[in-house]
């Protein structure tokens, strides 16, 4: 039988040799970067929690977890990748599929993405395209389908570009969160994606399974929140470590992740009781907000903050790659199918503080979340991190600044790219900001 050739809308034809070459070089570089990042994290906090070892292991994209998923796939499980955290994980789990987040953080692949889209586009998008072009990300390659939520402009077109190579299920969130018709639309979207997931996996999502999935995720949320709560006082864990823990939840086996995170929290609690701080308690406390940062390459900002002199510590963030991931639980009134679907829809839509939303009062939720975080985590300053091309976050900056100015919290706008070239310059900027924060802490 002749294989059906579908004309590709976007993806260029690349000679297999070039693909292979690029794949090996970038993969090698990536492995080095992962090792380097972990080494630096170890160096920064000499008494790093022992439980972190597990996350170091799982953070390797090409290692243990990829093999595990491969094994599961052989047994007939399906893998569903997703970009934005709007993808209903509970439904994926209930259909016995494996959810993995495939948004890319590789710097090198963003250059490849330039071949398809202009450089002005957000590097997360370009990098993801690039990774797909050379088949770099094992998770993406193993995915049987992608769930793409059409949040920002980049994501919207990304789903189109991706559909050249694999099945993409799209979900369209409404831009206004709190109107009746929005919730209605989103409810329908969730129902539609449920049918699609069922079709893909061949497993029916029964109320019983869905309930089990929701409870699994609630347990994960519990562990997740416990960890975030532990970061409230004097730092027991460095921000980067916590960020890594948060982010591994997007590709790890969630039950195992929950267990390991509870164990980590136990260890951290002991340390808290013994007053073993990860860094001096008077270290300036920084909250980061803005564009998501993806492991492994885009670890530039947190590394700079925590390795700078004077040192800063990331106590919290408002990013969909870290603190927002599992924070909101699905709250069920009655365990009927309809109510569960409703609850899932509400959890993903209403609790989200993604800047792609607006409302009568603007994206008030995001501001509130940020203020709460700043107050609860006693932050000394905020770094507003934006990658070039991420318009939604960039445009909300002046509003955030106005609000934070009123609270007398210094906020610093840092824009960058998926590149290592500006590290030196960024270091100077971050250090100047931290210097200022230190001065404010001391005097």
């Amino acid at each position, binding site marked *: 039988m002749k294989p059906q050739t579908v004309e590709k809308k976007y993806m260029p034809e690349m000679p297999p040799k070039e693909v292979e070459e690029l794949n090996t070089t970038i993969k090698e570089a990536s492995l080095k970067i992962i090792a380097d990042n972990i080494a630096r994290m170890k160096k920064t906090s000499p008494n790093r929690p022992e439980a972190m070892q597990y996350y170091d292991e799982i953070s390797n994209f090409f290692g243990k977890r990829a093999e595990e998923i491969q094994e599961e796939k052989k047994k007939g499980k399906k893998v569903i990748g997703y970009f934005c955290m709007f993808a209903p994980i509970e439904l994926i789990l209930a259909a016995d599929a494996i959810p993995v987040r495939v948004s890319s953080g590789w710097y090198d692949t963003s250059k490849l993405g330039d071949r398809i889209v202009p450089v002005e586009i957000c590097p997360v998008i370009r990098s993801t395209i690039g990774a797909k072009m050379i088949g770099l990300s094992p998770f993406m390659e193993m995915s049987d389908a992608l769930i793409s939520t059409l949040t920002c402009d980049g994501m919207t077109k990304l789903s189109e570009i991706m559909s050249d190579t694999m099945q993409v299920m799209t979900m369209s969130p409404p831009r206004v969160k709190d109107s009746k018709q929005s*919730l209605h639309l989103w409810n329908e979207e969730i129902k539609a994606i449920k049918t699609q997931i069922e079709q893909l996996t061949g497993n029916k999502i029964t109320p019983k399974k869905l309930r089990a999935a929701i409870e699994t995720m609630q347990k994960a949320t519990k562990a997740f929140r416990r960890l975030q709560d532990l970061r409230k006082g004097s730092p027991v864990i460095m921000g980067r470590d916590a960020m890594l823990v948060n982010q591994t939840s997007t590709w790890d086996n969630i039950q195992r992740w929950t267990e390991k995170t509870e164990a980590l929290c136990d260890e951290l609690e002991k340390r808290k009781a013994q007053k073993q701080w990860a860094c001096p308690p008077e270290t300036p406390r920084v909250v980061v907000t803005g564009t998501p940062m993806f492991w492994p390459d885009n670890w530039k900002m947190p590394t700079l903050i925590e390795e700078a002199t004077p040192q800063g510590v990331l106590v919290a963030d408002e990013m969909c790659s870290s603190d927002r991931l599992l924070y909101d*639980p699905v*709250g069920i009134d*009655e365990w*009927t199918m309809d109510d569960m679907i*409703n609850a899932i829809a509400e959890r993903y839509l209403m609790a989200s503080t993604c800047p792609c939303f607006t409302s009568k009062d603007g994206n008030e939720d995001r501001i509130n979340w940020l203020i709460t975080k700043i107050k609860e985590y006693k932050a000394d300053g905020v770094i507003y991190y934006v990658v070039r091309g991420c318009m939604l976050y960039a445009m909300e900056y002046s509003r955030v600044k106005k609000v934070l100015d009123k609270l007398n919290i210094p906020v610093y706008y840092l824009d960058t790219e998926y590149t290592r070239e500006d590290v030196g310059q960024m270091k100077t900027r971050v250090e100047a900001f931290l210097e200022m924060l230190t001065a404010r802490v001391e005097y």
Partner: protein
Amino acid sequence: MSVKIATDTLTLMLYGGVVAAGILALFIWVRNRTRKITAIRLFVQAAALFAIFATVLTLAKWNSLIYGALILVVPIFFGRFFCGWLCPFGFYQDLASLVRKKLRIRYWNLPERANRILHKFRYILAASMLATPVFFGILDWNVWVNFFQFQGGFKPLIIYFLGPLEPFLIPYPGGIGFSDYSLSYPYIRGFTQFFTVSIFTTIAVIAFIVLTLAGSFMVRRFWCRFCPTGVSITLANRFAGFKWAPLLHINKTEEKCTKCGICKRVCPVQVTEVYEQKGGDITTSMCFNCMRCVEMCPYEGCLKVNFANKTLVKSRNWLEPSKLNDEE
């Protein structure tokens, strides 16, 4: 005689004190157990049911006084706390809801507009309750005779089936109170009793009960949406002179809210203000303080129940999948 009154008063005060202390103790016990509100509420409701039976049986003389206080005075200070936590008819409806829940049937939500209209309908209901005796009295002098003698074929039935709950089933004793009795009749009886058409009355009352219970089977707290009892709290809310009076509030902290919408979804009478209002006091005349929203809110301290500026219960970062949801 005076000794009798004094003893009765003393007993009453004792009862009142025990009940108040019990509720307070419950709240203190409940402090960090926000997740158990529904169970505790059902327990209080069941206890209240028996307490009311007992009170009515032992203190028959003071019935109208107790009912008057419960229905007219308590709401001024506690809002519709009575409706949510003590009213036996509310308890019946909750039981109907529980049966539905056990059967895994999903409730129906009324359209928001219909809900609002029903809510306004209770004013008409309350007004007509108060007006019927007068109206029928003008038509037929005999009505006044029945009125004062408290006659009618329906009375035995209601004692038989509902016993002391009659005034609760029909919470608003329209017309005038007189010595031991509230002199007008239940909603349906209001129209029929005056002519002592016993069969018609019986049918009407049974129809009423079936309708409201069947209604509350599919629509949570169906009757409560237009029950005239809530009128008195509106009085407390509407008139400036009473602004100080409601002591029980549900408050919302704007900053902690991420508008996840859980509160709105779980509310049994579909109050939307809890979600739509940004912060501050979100108690409305529809809200009967069942505190389900506080129980389900997943953000620490976002929703709080305040009594006289003291926080009794606040929302918790609940994350243990609640066993309650299953067992109810």
